[in-house]
């Protein structure tokens, strides 16, 4: 469950400008999406929280976190049914990603 830039670098195919652009987008989008998810969850707005999981899971995919991506698919679906059992694991995943992105 360790994030990496393999997928982004494959697409970049040597293009530093694309790689930097993606890093910039991740740095700007991820923290606000994480914050939005936590707020929605704490306010018990599970449908909105599921919307944010949908956005966040794409970023997990971009960072080549296949298991985390698969977990997020199930968690998004569970949240729509107000099932919150995956919350703490999802938060752990988000914290791992946040730490990785901060160091980019």
């Amino acid at each position: 469950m360790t994030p990496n830039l393999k997928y982004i670098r494959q697409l970049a195919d040597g293009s530093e400008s694309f790689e930097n652009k993606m890093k910039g987008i991740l740095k700007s989008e991820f923290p606000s999406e994480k914050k939005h998810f936590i707020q929605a969850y704490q306010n018990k707005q599970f449908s909105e929280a599921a919307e944010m999981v949908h956005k966040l899971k794409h970023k997990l995919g971009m960072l080549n976190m296949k298991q985390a991506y698969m977990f997020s698919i199930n968690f998004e679906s569970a949240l729509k049914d107000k099932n919150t059992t995956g919350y703490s694991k999802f938060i752990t995943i988000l914290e791992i990603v946040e730490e990785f992105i901060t160091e980019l």
Partner: protein
Amino acid sequence: MRAIIVDDEAAARAIVEQLCTKVEALELVGEFPNAMQAIKFLNKESVDVVFLDIHMPDFTGFDFIETLKNPPQIILTTSDPNFALNAFEYACIVDYLTKPIAQERFQKAIQKIKIGSTIKNETLTINNDIEDLYVNIDRRLVKIKIQSIYAIEAKGDYIQIKTENGNHTVHTTLKKIEEKLPESLFLKVHRSYIINTSKIIDIEDNSILIQKDVIPVSRSNRDALMKRLNLL
């Protein structure tokens, strides 16, 4: 081929843009964070391909497709594999890519567009010459003057073609007949209704009076209708 990207996530747009740079035949002419901006663009410009996200706030990718009278070829890009079945309901959708999109898979989708473009152009040429529509009613092919049709209503597995000379019930779908009608004259104004815009008597909020029929206009189709009218 002229292409646009419609996706609310900047990261997703950047990835599709990068994938497009690897295909010489593609010219990316616009990127939009929501469907409404893309619709405004398509009212002025023609494109061959739309890379369209399904899951967007307020106006989904499917809402976007429903709004377009003649949608260009569409490649859906989504993180949600559950919509794949819905995609089969739209003839304009040529492929369905799940995020994160692999480069090889993207290339395969592009190949499908090229094949699709050729077929679509041939079909349009044939349609432009047609003034009459032949429909199968009780094992007879009945000729209907297209200009005499003022509305078509979907009724389960059937449609009712309403003309100035009477109504005809035919076993087909609204989508199939829509493909046979000239786009300059006919417009889908509701999930269950297509109208001949030249026969409109008046419009009030969410309904249209045509002949003696009051036809509902859905919110998602209202903009397309208003753009079609010569408003003072």
